[in-house]
């Protein structure tokens, strides 16, 4: 209420027309920005994507009243994309659940349940299922595990939470521990890891500004990592050329200089042709290539290239569908197997693909022994460079036109920009994400880019490198502190089941003898000490035997099949939504419908929590709620503002987010859940003499708790991850780790994050007070280095390649490496150092070996081991493709993983009969406005309104061909299922001309599902489970399908439609499964 009559103010004051101050109300006068009324501002990190933007969380009266960008963050400078900007609604909005729910077997609806009771029940289920399914041995080898329980999720969680999940479940004998990293970027770890030694992005976001040419391919940078994209705009403003290679013209293309349309799934042909162009025109960075890569290394005589064998490399076994990789080795080098890698031997004898093993190796650098022969003139016909030259000879611009549909002039444009902007004075950077990773040969896409960047001399240098844009807030962390079946923390491989294997044998087999991986014994023993404390002693192998053993692939897709078979009976979903996000979502739901029990922890009632009452199969009648005997627990999760913890962003940067408020109702952190679950199970098992219970009972599990909810201290967990010495003092870094049991460390690559007892991840020195590296903002693994392999930013003699591109150099006076970044090299090892004969470990690396995790210290143009589908990238068609592979006789990758199943039918490809039934290429992707499987956006009105419906993008030509009407509905059909979507006719998804044939592509966002504020069919109803053999990542970026106007049928008519198509295409269980 106004106290004075504004008219009086108007008549008496200066504002005679009453359009200014006279009209102001008392309320307006009293208006204050609510940020200024906050009781406190809490530093946090955006919970959505892996850019890791800083957030300030404003709290008043113990409520979050505003979340906005933190201007101090060197990555984001205070900016947030729409998702980050919607964090307030995400965390405080209506979409969140605050009550624990229970669905009894056969029940028609949810019941509320007391949280404590639910926890007891879940603990009972775990104990019972474990007993029932315990397996001491498998095929005569000790496994000491349960295959009855699986967990999924972790990329949205904190590192500390992932750590407790892995620790507790491993001690319980669970091996099927998986998270989004599998479906997202697992092929990155193989591709980058085998090439450079570490599986992470080689650079960091802000350094993009130093690039002279940014090639974004397989990523929709502006849409999926919008705040990171500001650094591309910065580079552009500073003169860089930006190229976007994508099937669609996206928001990234809109501001790029060049957009290159490409057929989904054909990038190896495109990149291969650039490699060919670089080699044939001698455009590679000669000095870099000779000294820092394995170009000069000579290969064995019995190696045969895909060039010679029409798409196969030597060593292929038709029966086993795998390669024996012996012949791929360097000449004159003792093989890994001879030095005792019994894991590989074991697998080979069993005739199976080493499950996930190459990924392990890939991520960690390869074990190599002996000294390979080199020809530094690069003329030897068997030297890597010459092999490369021959291999890529057939990848010509004409091939690019035929395979990728890229016109020659565009291809040449890319070659020109890329090569003109590489060299001593210039650097070009590649940026990719899941447009590359999610293919049945995804690892090879990344290998191809790695080869190209090595040839151009762009790795380890400012403005160069390969920027792998990861997905979730902590997907990098959930790979580092892994909730992945095949890894222990810090990329130490999970042991496989062998006869009488002891710690010593394992280390002998799996620890390389050169490079930094030679120190694996220290890393592993320290880990075992962290987990089993006093109980871990030298005489009991530090409890190495308590680690459950692998016997093949236990990836999330194998788990689904195990659920359908009935071996996996209990499932814990910790922030993942496979009913929407994983390939072939129907299989995911059918698997869950066959469980005894399911625990879902999430913010909202996502599809993976409610499929039993409203899933698509209920609608079609394929399932009936009352027949589903799965017991379902739903536990509401606490949000990032309600807990402490660290996220690791896409550039390996650990950033701590502080708790702002207490969670409401039954919402609890996953740290709370895992800790108390462990506590209850240990209480229930207390006194058990059963040897299977000993690992749980002896587990170190005494974290301090605080507050009303007894929340465990995340910092205490971080301290354990960092590790301590015999005195209990925090370790300063991984160099301090010992293999004698005197140090404990939960994850060796994170060692140093709690140096001096200070949470280094919580460091927040403002960007404005630092250089672009911002070394005092949070903490990056390894050892706070921001650009990996940065020794390569200097010439062999240690001086910078050029003034423009100085980063790290040798200071002769101080006899040290110095520079802007922390040198990724032994600080005191001079450029002139050459290892004495017989040197082992780190000593064996010379002063010109920048890739210190690799056993030969070199970047690998050719991968002699570690990549199971070939040492060099080779173009194969996707599993389902309407195009014939014109490069080789092999249509598909001969070693891809297929899982024939009634609900996982593959389609005829190329010129096989029936292929024309599914004539169009489908690719799936993201929208800026939504997040992944939708759990964090479809329940959030501010995001939902921006993209309220599932749609398909089609070209005007395709629309005309099939009678699709803009704005109307269309039905898209594959051999798995059919979905409906609104039609968006647009020039942005051009039809391609390959080999005289017009090929249409269909674009589908994958965010929709049936729950939430906005709903729609999930794209993953269409995709199949067909996997990259290295990483077990699914192929969801290139499918083939048919499209027709109108909505899809309802009820039983839907599966009928799918079957009718299958019949027309002549599909049976063998279709598409040939080698």
């Amino acid at each position: 209420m106004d106290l004075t009559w504004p008219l009086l103010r108007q008549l008496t004051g200066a504002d005679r027309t009453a359009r200014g101050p006279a009209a102001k109300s008392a309320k307006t006068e009293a208006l204050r920005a609510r940020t200024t009324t906050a009781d406190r501002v809490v530093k946090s990190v955006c919970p959505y994507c892996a850019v890791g933007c800083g957030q300030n969380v404003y709290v008043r009266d113990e409520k979050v009243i505003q979340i906005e960008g933190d201007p101090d963050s060197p990555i984001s400078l205070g900016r947030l994309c729409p998702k980050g900007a919607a964090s307030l609604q995400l965390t405080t909005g209506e979409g969140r659940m605050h009550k624990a729910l229970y669905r009894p077997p056969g029940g028609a609806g949810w019941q509320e349940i007391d949280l404590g009771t639910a926890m007891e029940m879940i603990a009972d289920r775990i104990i019972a299922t474990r007993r029932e399914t315990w397996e001491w041995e498998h095929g005569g080898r000790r496994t000491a595990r349960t295959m009855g329980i699986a967990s999924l999720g972790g990329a949205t969680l904190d590192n500390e939470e992932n750590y407790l999940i892995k620790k507790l479940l491993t001690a319980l004998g669970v091996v099927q521990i998986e998270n989004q990293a599998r479906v997202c970027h697992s092929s990155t770890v193989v591709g980058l890891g085998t090439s450079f030694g570490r599986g992470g992005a080689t650079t960091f976001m802000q350094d993009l500004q130093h690039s002279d040419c940014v090639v974004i391919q397989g990523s929709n940078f502006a849409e999926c990592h919008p705040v990171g994209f500001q650094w591309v705009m910065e580079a552009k403003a500073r003169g860089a050329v930006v190229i976007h290679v994508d099937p669609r013209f996206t928001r990234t293309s809109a501001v790029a200089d060049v957009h290159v349309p490409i057929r989904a799934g054909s990038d190896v042909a495109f990149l291969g042709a650039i490699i060919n162009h670089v080699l044939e025109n001698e455009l590679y960075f000669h000095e870099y290539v000779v000294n820092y890569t394995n170009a000069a290394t000579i290969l064995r005589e019995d190696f045969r290239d895909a060039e010679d064998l029409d798409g196969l490399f030597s060593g292929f076994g038709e029966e086993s569908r795998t390669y024996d990789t012996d012949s791929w080795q360097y000449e004159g080098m003792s093989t890994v197997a001879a030095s005792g890698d019994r894991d590989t031997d074991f697998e080979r004898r069993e005739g199976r693909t080493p499950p996930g093993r190459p990924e392990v190796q890939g991520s960690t650098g390869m074990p190599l022994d002996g000294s390979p022969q080199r020809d530094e003139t690069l003329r030897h016909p068997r030297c890597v460079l010459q092999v490369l030259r021959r291999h890529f000879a057939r990848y010509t611009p004409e091939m690019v036109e035929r395979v990728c549909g890229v016109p020659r002039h565009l291809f040449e444009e890319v070659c020109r920009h890329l090569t003109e902007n590489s060299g001593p004075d210039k650097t070009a950077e590649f940026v990719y994400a899941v447009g590359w990773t999610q293919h049945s040969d995804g690892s090879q896409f990344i290998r191809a880019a790695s080869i190209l960047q090595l040839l151009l001399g762009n790795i380890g240098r400012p403005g160069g490198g390969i920027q792998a844009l990861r997905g979730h807030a902590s997907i990098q962390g959930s790979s580092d502190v892994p909730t992945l079946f095949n890894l222990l923390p810090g990329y130490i491989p999970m042991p496989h089941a062998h006869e009488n294997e002891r710690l010593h044998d394992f280390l002998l087999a799996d620890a390389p003898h050169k490079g930094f991986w030679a120190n694996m014994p220290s890393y592993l023993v320290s880990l075992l000490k962290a987990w089993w404390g006093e109980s871990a002693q030298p005489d009991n192998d530090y409890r190495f035997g308590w680690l459950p053993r692998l016997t093949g692939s236990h990836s999330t897709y194998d788990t689904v099949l195990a659920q359908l078979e009935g071996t996996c009976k209990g499932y814990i979903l910790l922030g993942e939504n496979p009913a929407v996000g994983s390939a072939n979502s129907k299989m995911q739901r059918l698997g869950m419908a066959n469980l005894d029990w399911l625990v879902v922890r999430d913010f909202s009632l996502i599809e993976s929590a409610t499929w039993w009452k409203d899933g698509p199969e209920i609608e079609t009648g394929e399932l009936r709620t009352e027949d589903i005997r799965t017991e379902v627990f739903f536990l509401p999760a606490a949000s990032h503002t309600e807990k402490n913890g660290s996220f690791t962003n896409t550039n390996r940067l650990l950033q701590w987010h502080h708790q702002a408020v207490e969670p409401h109702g039954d919402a609890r952190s996953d740290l709370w859940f895992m800790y108390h679950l462990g506590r209850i199970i240990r209480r229930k098992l207390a006194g058990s003499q059963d040897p299977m219970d000993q690992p749980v009972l002896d587990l170190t599990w005494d974290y301090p708790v605080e507050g009303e909810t007894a929340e465990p201290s995340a910092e205490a967990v971080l301290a354990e991850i960092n590790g301590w010495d015999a005195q209990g003092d925090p370790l300063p870094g991984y160099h301090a780790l010992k293999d004698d049991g005197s140090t404990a460390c939960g994850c060796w690559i994170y060692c140093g994050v709690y140096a001096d007892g200070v949470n280094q991840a919580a460091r927040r020195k403002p960007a404005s007070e630092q250089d672009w590296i911002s070394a005092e903002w949070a903490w990056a693994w390894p050892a706070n280095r921001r650009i990996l392999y940065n020794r390569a930013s200097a010439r062999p003699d240690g001086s910078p390649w050029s003034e423009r591109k100085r980063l790290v150099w040798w200071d002769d006076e101080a006899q040290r490496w110095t520079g802007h970044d922390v040198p990724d090299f032994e600080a005191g090892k001079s450029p002139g150092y050459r290892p004495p004969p017989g040197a082992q470990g780190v000593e064996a690396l010379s002063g010109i070996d920048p890739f210190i995790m690799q056993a030969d210290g070199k970047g690998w143009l050719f991968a002699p081991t570690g990549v199971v589908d070939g040492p060099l990238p080779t173009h194969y068609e996707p599993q389902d493709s309407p195009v014939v592979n014109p490069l080789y006789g092999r249509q598909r990758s001969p070693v891809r993983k297929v899982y024939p199943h009634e609900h996982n039918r593959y389609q005829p490809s190329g010129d096989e009969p029936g292929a024309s039934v599914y004539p169009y290429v489908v690719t799936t992707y993201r929208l800026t406005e939504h997040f992944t499987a939708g759990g964090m956006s479809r329940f959030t009105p501010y995001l939902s309104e921006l993209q309220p419906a599932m749609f398909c993008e089609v070209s005007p030509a395709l629309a005309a061909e099939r009678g699709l009407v803009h704005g109307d509905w269309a039905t898209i059909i594959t051999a798995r299922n059919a979905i409906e979507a609104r039609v968006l006719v647009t020039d942005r998804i051009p039809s391609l001309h390959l080999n005289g044939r017009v090929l249409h592509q269909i674009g589908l966002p994958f965010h929709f599902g049936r729950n939430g504020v906005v709903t729609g069919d999930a794209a993953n109803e269409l995709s199949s489970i067909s996997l990259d053999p290295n990483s077990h990542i699914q192929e969801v970026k290139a499918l083939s399908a048919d499209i027709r106007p109108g909505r899809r049928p309802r009820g039983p008519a839907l599966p009928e439609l799918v079957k009718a198509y299958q019949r027309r295409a002549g599909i049976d269980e063998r279709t598409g499964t040939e080698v």
Partner: protein
Amino acid sequence: MSQTDVRMDGSAELRGEREATPGSAGRRRERLLVPKAEFDSYYGRPVLHEPTWQAPDIAGYLFLGGLAGASSTLAAAAELTGRPRLARVGKVGAVCALGGSLYALIHDLGRPERFVNMLRVFKVTSPMSVGTWLLSAYGPQAGLAAAASLTGVAPGVGRAATVGAGLVGPAVATYTAALICDTAVPAWHEGYREMPFLFAGSATASAGGLGMFAAPLDEAGPARRAAVLGAAVECVAALRMERRLGPLAEPLKRSRLLRLGEALSVAGAVAGATVGRRSRVAAMAAGAALLAGSACTRFGIFQAGMESARDPRYTVQPQRRRLAKTRAERDLT
């Protein structure tokens, strides 16, 4: 030109303005030319927001306000010329119309309880503010006039109020034209020169109609003549407006309501002036036709305005023409 070398200074310094220029990497290829579309708008969406006003409320308000204002004037004239029954019809009619118009106005407010906020300030820039103050001056007088006439109490005050209301009335009847013209609605705004006359004419016609309808034949002479005058003015104003607006007049020309309103007004006026002089029934019919005609005119104007706001062509094309003209003029000098 490229300056992407590594700089060591703080990133704030480093970060210039992000003045990236997309497509700056060199010459592009020549391509097929797509002819530029004649008229571009954003997916055919309106540029303007059409008024949120509801037709029954606001068109009704325009009509009733006009009726009230002109009736008061007619009543005053009748009173002064010794036509008490015509005067009473006018006064009572004015109060009823005023009541109705106020109801419509308040009903249309999003927060009717805050009607009084209209009196916080006096804004000469806001016809609605001016109108509100006008109504505040007019309303009590009109009320007093009617009350006195009905009750016979305080005839002196009543007469003064009658004259007062009669003098303010025309302003009440025409300010509404400024009210709607003082918007960005093309058909309204551009018609601002004629609109007040159209409204004045229509109001006069309707007041005449009311007089014919309710007053005895012998006193209704001024009403009949007023109707004729009003209808004539209305028609002429409408014609001129349509001519002057050019293409913008399309919605006006297309409006069936407007045509109907004109027809009813003319017919009512003519009938009133002829058979309406003799037959009470005919006078009532003619009066009703005039009232209906005036209402139709206002609803027609209202809807034509809405239509012109809804179609972006009516916003964009006149502005384009104007721009072209100023540019041409500028180029000449």
